[in-house]
């Protein structure tokens, strides 16, 4: 296994310890619940925004904790929803008089854990609302899942809700923003390789040397089809078309575009994809207001990428531009 790990069972707490060590002024780490919260804690005059999911998608979700982003987050084992109590404790640690928005990506385990945690917290009088994110267009109207998956679009929901909460908007307003972003954001991804969860030690799926999985999920779930690898432009076109036709986006739309790496793809390849997506978006008459090229929602060391488009209005544009701070430091 070509990985930097000690005991695979300790992989998640160890990397969380690293994040905490690296951000002593920004973050607090509670190992018992694999929870990271803002050092400054929640503010009773501001809505809290929390999230939590399986590990292996970093910088989602615990690396998105910080002013202007999440108030707190917890992580389960790699690709496994956090235990109910971790979710419950995260809600409690972040509870605010202004209320808490719980952002949940649409997966069976996550939904069940957060449902229970929310019921427990509400029973104690904690004011909250839950919102389900499902931006992945890969598998339509699936009969065998709980519906569309939540993937890289999650970043935009966090960013906008975090900024709105920071600006002092109330719980209903922050919820409405989550809804607006989710209704206007779509994503599709492609995988060139599988990843290897440390505890498993072997790839989660087999894929030929010349194959790619189009529409892959961030846990390696199958997408639309398996096919021969084509060139970067053809792949960018396929992702762009799938995303653009879904809502659909229209000429004249102001948009934010994200080309997200799944973990093992170098930034240069993401920019090759971005060049094409940018071109396609301009030809389609969209006005590209912001762009994001890098890693936002990964699948361990999987080679692959996803394309996300978000339709903007004045409100969302302002929220995206608002300042924020997270564990990621560039310089």
């Amino acid at each position, binding site marked *: 296994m070509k990985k930097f790990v000690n005991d695979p069972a300790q992989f998640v707490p160890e990397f969380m310890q690293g994040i905490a060590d690296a951000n002593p002024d920004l973050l607090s780490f509670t190992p018992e619940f694999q929870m990271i919260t803002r050092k400054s804690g929640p503010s009773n005059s501001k809505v809290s925004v929390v999230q939590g999911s399986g590990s292996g998608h970093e910088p989602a979700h615990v690396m998105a904790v910080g002013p202007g982003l999440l108030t707190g987050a917890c992580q389960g084992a790699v*690709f*496994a*929803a956090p235990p*109910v109590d971790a979710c419950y404790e995260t809600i409690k640690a972040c509870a605010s008089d202004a209320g808490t928005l719980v952002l949940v990506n649409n997966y*069976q*385990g996550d939904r*069940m854990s957060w449902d229970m945690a929310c019921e427990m917290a509400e029973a104690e009088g904690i004011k909250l609302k839950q919102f389900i994110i499902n931006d992945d267009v890969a598998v339509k109207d699936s009969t065998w899942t709980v519906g569309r998956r939540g993937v890289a679009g999650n970043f935009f929901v966090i960013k906008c809700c975090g900024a709105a909460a920071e600006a002092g908007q109330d719980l209903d307003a922050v919820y409405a923003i989550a809804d607006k972003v989710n209704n206007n954001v779509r994503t599709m991804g492609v995988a060139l390789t599988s990843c290897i969860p440390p505890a498993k030690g072997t790839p989660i799926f087999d894929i030929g040397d010349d194959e790619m999985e189009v529409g892959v999920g961030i*846990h390696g779930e199958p997408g639309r089809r398996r096919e021969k690898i084509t060139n970067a432009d053809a792949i960018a076109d396929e992702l762009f078309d799938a995303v653009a036709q879904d809502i659909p986006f229209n000429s004249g739309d102001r948009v934010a575009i994200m080309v997200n790496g799944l973990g093992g793809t170098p930034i240069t390849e993401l920019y090759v994809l971005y060049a094409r997506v940018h071109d396609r978006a301009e030809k389609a008459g969209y006005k590209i207001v912001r762009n994001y090229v890098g890693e936002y929602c990964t699948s361990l060391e999987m080679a692959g990428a996803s394309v996300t488009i978000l339709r903007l209005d004045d409100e969302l544009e302002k929220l995206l531009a608002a300042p924020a701070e997270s564990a990621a430091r560039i310089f």
Partner: protein
Amino acid sequence: MAEISQGTIEQAIQTTAETVLRNELYFCDLDGLAGDGDFGNSLATGFRAIKNEWDGIDKSNIGAMLLKISMIVSKNVGGSSGPIWGTGFMKAAMLTRGKRAVTLPELTDMVGAAIEGIQARGGAQRGDKTLLDALLPIHETLQKHCEAGDTDLGAALKDCAEAADKAVDETRNLVAHRGRASQVGERSANTPDPGIVAIATILQDWCKHHGVERTPTAPEVAKATA
């Protein structure tokens, strides 16, 4: 035997802990066939905690005990198993508040409440290839025993084990529609569901503990109880 004492239920839970810990790796392997390979670990994490905290668990009555067990599961078990098993124990706890023993009809209702809770929690239906495909026939078997006025726990256990065992083979070729295994689509066909195998193995071990003779039919259950 007209009543099932709290002691019997305590023993059943301890037996379950042994079943689950003994099969930690095997249940992971089964989950690895179509799921993400963590089922054995997840469940074992929960029952290891139950075992460690056993002496301190409030045993003033069945309901209090099951509630505490539900809480231990909620604290320690991630993935889908946490909410599913936690909910099951919680619903059974709610029907047994203050009780020191239950009748077979009451036990049947406990299983029914657990099923309802799990269905409400995860939305799975019969045939979705989840542990509900073992729990539903178990519940029906118990109901039949109750209707027949049958009060022998051993006989009921044997039939329940039979029903769960059958569920392993009957669902083997289905495509999973819920949980992580559903995310591999067709790949989940021809693999047994680890949750169903776990339920059948637990019941087989309960039979053994009660001195009920029975040979498992599904190869996975045979392997897990060997």
